[in-house]
């Protein structure tokens, strides 16, 4: 079942053509990897899908509905969650508060009820705290849950961000280079976490990744971009043999 469709999307920013006539269709339930050299437009495409850059041309639809011109927070509330390339956790808040932020959409009470606290607000808070305990133990964050997020090491912060993204119970999870800046062991941990998340919580994942071994290991479908367009797509086996792809990567055969 198609979850997200990108149709003929073009994007021009400050005079540079970032995306040209991109067509993609992402099925639910699978791990899709989007690969390509730096500057290929992968992150910009994600920005178009999630509403940060309105495309000049083309449409994006989610479960059949056109979401092209929607604001990012509206799109998030429809069920698309996202991790960013750079650390975007809230360093002033505790780990637990960060993950609870993920539950923001599902925490239902208004300001007046918050002012009173006892009653609906308290019930909702307790309910959501319960909902996130499983996610936090899943990603081994229980020990640090009261710690201020800004004081933790990089790898842990990434896990917090992942926990926050999952806590939103999204239908589609977009991960932008989740392993960047990590050593082998941290990468292993994050990949395992992503796989377990895929099995247990979130049906559909869009993964932007440079590490080819990771990509080949975990993706169901691979989409290859270069110079703002799609140059190939298919399952890992096909992509490995694809001449265009190999050409695009000449000189940068995967990453170590």
């Amino acid at each position: 079942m198609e979850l997200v469709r990108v149709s003929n999307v073009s994007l021009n920013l400050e005079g540079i053509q970032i995306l040209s006539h991109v067509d993609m269709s992402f099925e639910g339930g699978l791990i899709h990897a989007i690969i390509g050299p730096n500057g290929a437009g992968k992150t910009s495409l994600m920005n178009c899908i999630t509403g940060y850059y309105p495309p000049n041309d083309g449409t994006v639809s989610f479960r059949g509905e056109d979401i092209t011109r929607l604001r990012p927070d509206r799109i998030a509330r429809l069920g698309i969650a996202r991790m960013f390339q750079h650390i975007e956790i809230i360093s002033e808040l505790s780990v637990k508060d960060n993950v609870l932020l993920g539950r923001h959409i599902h925490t239902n009470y208004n300001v007046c009820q918050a002012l009173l606290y006892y009653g609906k607000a308290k019930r909702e808070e307790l309910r959501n705290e319960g909902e996130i305990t499983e996610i936090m133990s899943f990603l081994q964050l229980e020990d640090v849950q009261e710690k201020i997020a800004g004081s933790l090491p990089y790898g842990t912060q990434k896990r917090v961000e992942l926990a926050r993204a999952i806590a939103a119970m999204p239908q589609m999870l977009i991960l932008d280079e989740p392993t960047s800046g990590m050593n082998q062991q941290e990468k292993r941990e994050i990949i395992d976490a992503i796989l377990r998340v895929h099995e247990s919580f979130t049906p559909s994942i869009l993964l932007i990744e440079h590490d080819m071994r990771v990509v080949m290991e975990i993706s169901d479908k691979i989409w290859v971009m270069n110079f703002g367009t799609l140059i190939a797509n298919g399952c890992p086996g096909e992509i490995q043999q694809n001449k265009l792809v190999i050409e695009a990567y000449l000189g940068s055969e995967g990453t170590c």
Partner: protein
Amino acid sequence: MASLESDSDRVVVKTPTSAPTSATSAVLAVVALIALFLAPLVGNKYIIFLITLILINVISVQGLNFLIGYTGQLSLGHGAFVALGAYLTAILCNTYSASFWVVIVIVPLATGLVGVLVALPALRLKGLYLAMVTLAFHMVVSLGLMSLDDITGGYQGMAVPNPRLGSVVFNTEGHFYYLALLCALLIYAASANVARSKFYRGFIAVKEKEISAQAMGISLWYYKTLAFLFASIYGGLAGCLFAVTMGHVTPNHFPMMMSIEFIMMITVGGPGSFVGLTIGASLITLLPYFLLYAVQEMGTVVPSVVVYFADIKIVIYGLVLVGSLMFLPGGLYGLKAKVQGWLAK
């Protein structure tokens, strides 16, 4: 290496979330409460009056904290909301003879509406632009209060009649003290509740990481406007209490410096935490009175000093503001955490 590339143009201050949880804090709070309730019975009138002013400023600065401490919107015009609240109170009670108990509810709502209106342009502006616009807002309000003299009484201001509750007329320091104390406690409770709700998390997210806040479904304009709403409602309430405590309002009560005093309360006390804000409000409220006393004492020795009071005052203000920013990031309350960290080593 210093880098100018870190460009979040908001106030980012890392303080732990408030709400005292340990047993000693709870005991201290109870003791403080008892002391506060008993104060008018033992204290002299002037001290009670000063504490009333402190309580009013505590309400005010907690409102400003929503903008500066929570959503990182620097407002240099908070005094305008207090001024509006005070004058609206004066007008309704004096010119329209409304009952104070109705007015105290209406005025904050009215200033809240103004706050929402101010928030609208503010949504598009950041950092310096927002600061300038809020500064201009205070200036415009000040000018307006002075020029519309048929409504506001111009330079001379307006008198504010004493509230009546049944047969009781509020006309002593004690009356206004308890009124302010009650309101301050209510505001504390409300703010504490907000601080443990999703709105607190949302505010901080908007302050620190606008981009990912949106990715979590947080609507930026809603939260930024909500912060302004809290600030303006609290400010209006403070203004209302101020008007009735002083018994009259004049434009002199709300100079531009008032907005800066609120900023100082936050930088000296520490943004974000209630204890810090209370410390800041107390110190800065008392500062001009203390300075006046000091200068008058000095005046007995060196008479010419007294003439320079206004200038001495702003020199001290400048020193306090710059000094607190240079040496006390996180305010005096943040200092406590630092000292604790030191001692733990």
